[in-house]
């Protein structure tokens, strides 16, 4: 594969895939340890009504209205889940199930009832994303990476997801100590004066921002997979949080690159002509990694827990 083909067609989607995977996997580590792994699932479902409403209100499919709508929907969903859990005294898993299915159904209905056929907004796209279409038309080869004119033609999704990834990393770096303490020992964290409630909410909001930015580029399925699979596999590799995060970033990168390559070039190796869904393949690869970690991971069992429970 020469640079003339690779740089315009594959480099940008791979980079977007990698940045997305890392941006989701980083907060995913903490969500996993705090047993909130399914928050990512809920958020990525409610993004749909958010963007549909944003479109209906503003009438445009611009980035910022979509992002704002999705972010608002994510926050509304989290607040609703919490409200139903407390006011209705409903178990949190069930409360989550009620909220995200109803909001997703509302989004689908709005989409079907309103005239969105003229714009690129449909359920399949929301679920599967369209990573393959994010190509860099202005590039002619590796040299374009240094060419300011060509660089200006980069898909805006790339910059957005890169900034998001940096933002997520900065959040974790800034709040590293309180997050770590609050995740492992909430009572002690409160005793030490950390506002665990606000911190937990902040973590969920950061996860929501990552999900929304990622959703824009790659669809919601890959978002859920990247929130859970790389951190879960990493959790089976080590007992130290720092190492777990490093592993999860590695697994996320590996899933994104391998998934994209398999989706784009895999069918050619088997004599097919068309590529398959990159987002789906990235999720599948992350699942294979998790399966391998489940079977061979060095830290896969609970230490000190009675066996058979």
């Amino acid at each position: 594969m020469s640079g003339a083909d690779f740089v315009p067609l594959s480099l940008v989607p791979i980079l977007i895939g990698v940045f997305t995977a890392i941006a989701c996997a980083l907060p995913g580590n903490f969500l996993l340890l705090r047993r909130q792994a399914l928050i990512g699932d809920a958020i990525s479902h409610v993004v749909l009504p958010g963007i549909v409403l944003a479109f209906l209100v503003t009438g445009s499919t611009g980035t910022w209205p979509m992002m704002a709508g999705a972010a608002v929907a994510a926050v509304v969903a989290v607040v609703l889940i919490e409200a139903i859990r407390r006011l209705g005294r409903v178990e949190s898993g069930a409360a989550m199930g009620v909220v995200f299915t109803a909001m997703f159904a509302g989004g689908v209905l709005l989409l079907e009832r309103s005239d969105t056929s003229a714009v690129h907004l449909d359920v399949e796209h929301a679920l599967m994303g369209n990573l393959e279409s994010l190509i860099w038309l202005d590039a002619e080869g590796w040299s374009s990476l240094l060419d300011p004119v060509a660089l200006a033609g980069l898909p805006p999704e790339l910059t957005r997801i890169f900034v998001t990834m940096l933002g997520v990393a900065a959040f974790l770096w800034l709040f590293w100590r309180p997050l770590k303490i609050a995740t492992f020992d909430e009572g002690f964290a409160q005793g030490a004066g950390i506002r665990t409630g606000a911190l937990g909410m902040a973590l969920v909001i950061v996860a929501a921002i990552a999900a929304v930015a990622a959703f824009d580029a790659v669809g919601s399925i890959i978002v859920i997979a990247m929130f859970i699979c790389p951190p879960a596999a990493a959790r089976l590799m080590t007992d130290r949080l720092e190492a777990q995060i490093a592993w999860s970033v590695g697994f996320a990168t590996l899933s994104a690159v391998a998934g994209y390559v398999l989706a784009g070039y895999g069918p050619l190796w088997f004599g097919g002509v068309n590529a398959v869904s990159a987002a789906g393949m990235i999720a599948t690869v992350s699942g294979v990694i998790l399966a391998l970690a489940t079977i061979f991971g060095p830290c896969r069992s609970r230490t000190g827990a009675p066996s058979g429970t």
Partner: protein
Amino acid sequence: MLFEALTLQLGYNATLVAVGAALLGVAAGVTGTFLFLRKRALVADAISHATLPGVGLAFIVMVLAGGDGRNLAGLMAGSALTAWGGLICVQAITRRTRLSEDAAIGAVLSVFFGAGIVLLTVIQTMSSGRQAGLDGLLLGSTAGMLRQDALMIAAGGALTLALVLILRRAMILVAFDSEYARSIGLRPDRVDMMTMLLVLAVTVVGLKIVGLILIVALLIIPPVTARFWTERSTRVAAYAGVVGGVSGYVGAALSASAPAMPTGPIIVLTCFVLFLLSLLLAPERGLLAAWLRHRRFQERVHIRQGLLALAQGQEVYEPLTIRLLVRKGLARRDGVPTEAGRARAAKALRDEHRWQALHGLAEYEAISGLYDGLRDIETVLTADQIDELDAVLGGPREVTP
């Protein structure tokens, strides 16, 4: 149009679909109750998303075998197979590793769904342009449903419901006390497995009507809704069945009555409306009931405190207290007590003294624990006992106005 749809006058197929959706809703509501009682509601989400690769595989196999890829029975068989695989994966991850169940659920649902999407894109490239029906399985659609499909869904819903009814006692026992269930010869792990198989059956039957992304709503929302209305598990199951059945029926009818009304989302939203109504209006557990309870309590506290203040000749400044006293005819707008108010105030103060006297007496120790500042003393003591207390206190004194 809507009236015709609700009264089953839109033709044989629409009627079959509405009846099938109602049966499916009842089966889903009752099955979901046991999942809900086991606090494993979201396992259903993993199962339902894991049906997608099965749908894709079944389509490919059927096309390769030269048949029609959209044969619903074949698709249902394929989806059941991978849903089973997904369930096994969730259990394997939870049992064999230290990952918690929610992580296992999330991993399985996203990975299986991702694999399913890969298969769907493979199908799109498979020349035969007849995969259009597969998209309908994501969100459910009853438009253009074949008669045999509608019959199969109705029969599947009825069969699942019958199985749930047969297994209900075992599932309730295991949900509430698995140790006891074990001691009378039930195997909790097998009963759990049966519950999951029923969930799987509901998912597969609901694939065509509700779609695989939203079927989980029909398993979760009805039991949560039913829980507001009763504290008894058998009734939760029965009410959940009603909620699910009504949602399925009304949703299918609404969707048949107008274009661009996707069946799955309409059913789920109907169900959600029932949930909201229950959250607001249910007796005991509803928000309105809780608010009224709070208001009544607040009222009693304000009146009691207001009366005590009046009895001791203190000015009442709190506007709410004055308003409540005026409404009960116990005081005037300027805070001066009426005749009745004076009597009640004296009584309130005297009761307060009686309670205080009670605290010092050993034989009333149990009763003095009931003191909360609101309880009328006559409700806990006999007239004789009150006389006895009054003897300790001394006779009534004049209250200075």
